[in-house]
């Protein structure tokens, strides 16, 4: 494709309803939400998506989630990378089934990733980081940040067979510091010789 065009797209969503909470069917909570996103340059090599969403619940109050993601496609998608930041800014709320005390739910989310394909080989790196504003929130077990980094190497053995290995390193208050490895063998079953992949 030659040249690049810029696309502006505004999407708005509004819903108002009575909602029965997922696991407590007896709850009579009112829920409202609206949001939107603006997309710039979705057909060019740089793509920016800015998004916003507001939610309101009678029981827990208001929350706003806003942020943006940037994505680069270089040399016809052989190299891709992305970066994003989102902030959730929410009213203080009690833990489930109690009336108090109130804790902060607000947090930030930072993500960066890259993916490279060269011939039959592919490699990727993906990192995600959360930071919570209120360390005293009992759901955090006293640890205000969570992160995970995943690295992966892959080899496309045949058109239908791909072998890849991942190594991930993370830290959170449930599992503490942990390293995980994964070996992945993917085989695509195809009924036709053309198309129909995936």
């Amino acid at each position, binding site marked *: *494709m030659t040249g690049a065009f810029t696309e502006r797209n505004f999407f708005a969503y509004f819903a108002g309803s009575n909602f029965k909470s997922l*696991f407590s069917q007896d709850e009579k909570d009112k829920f409202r939400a609206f949001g939107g996103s603006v997309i710039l340059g979705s057909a060019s090599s740089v793509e920016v998506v800015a998004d916003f969403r507001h939610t309101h*619940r009678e029981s827990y109050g208001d*929350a706003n989630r806003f942020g943006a993601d940037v994505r680069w496609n270089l040399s016809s998608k052989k190299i891709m990378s992305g970066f994003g930041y989102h902030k959730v800014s929410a009213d203080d709320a009690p833990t489930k089934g109690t009336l108090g005390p109130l804790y902060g739910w607000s947090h930030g989310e930072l993500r960066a990733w890259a993916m490279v394909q060269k011939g039959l080989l592919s490699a990727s790196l993906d990192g995600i980081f959360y930071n919570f504003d209120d360390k005293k929130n009992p759901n955090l077990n006293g640890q205000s940040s969570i992160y995970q980094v995943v690295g992966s190497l892959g080899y496309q053995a045949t058109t239908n067979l791909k072998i890849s290995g991942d190594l991930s390193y993370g830290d959170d208050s449930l599992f503490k510091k942990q390293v995980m490895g994964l070996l992945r063998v993917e085989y695509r079953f195809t009924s036709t010789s*053309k198309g129909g992949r995936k």
Partner: protein
Amino acid sequence: MIRKTILICVAALGIGFLTACALLSPQTSFAPTHPEGVETASRPMCSDCHGTEAMKGGLKTFESFNHTPTFVKNHRFQANQDSGTCASCHAPSFCSDCHGGKVSMASSVKLGDRPDREMPHRGNYLILHRMDGKVDPTGCYKCHGRSNNDKCATCHSQRGVR
């Protein structure tokens, strides 16, 4: 009396609309699999190959299926109306990577080699979901809460979440 007439009109319109949809539905004229192997590791822009013309037997353009960020975010609209089109390229397993419920492996682990993919959750979600689930449980209900809840329910009852 006037009220009744209006009701009948609406009903007639409704039926007419449904028939029109059935007539215009492009599904029957589609090849069962997409004839050209579209490169898999990237979101396709249909208009790169098909141009801007309308699809056979339908009012929609190929362009309207371009896998832009908007399309990916809002694919429920297209998926509901044109599931046949999706199936010409996507096997059910592709959809179930995110919609699964039956698979017990987190999508972010299964697709750990594909950071470019959109994922319902990333990283270790068990802590964060406690906040997300409060902020907007309606979103979760699209994929959870109907079946395959054993894992969720077990921990919730142990921790008194109900």
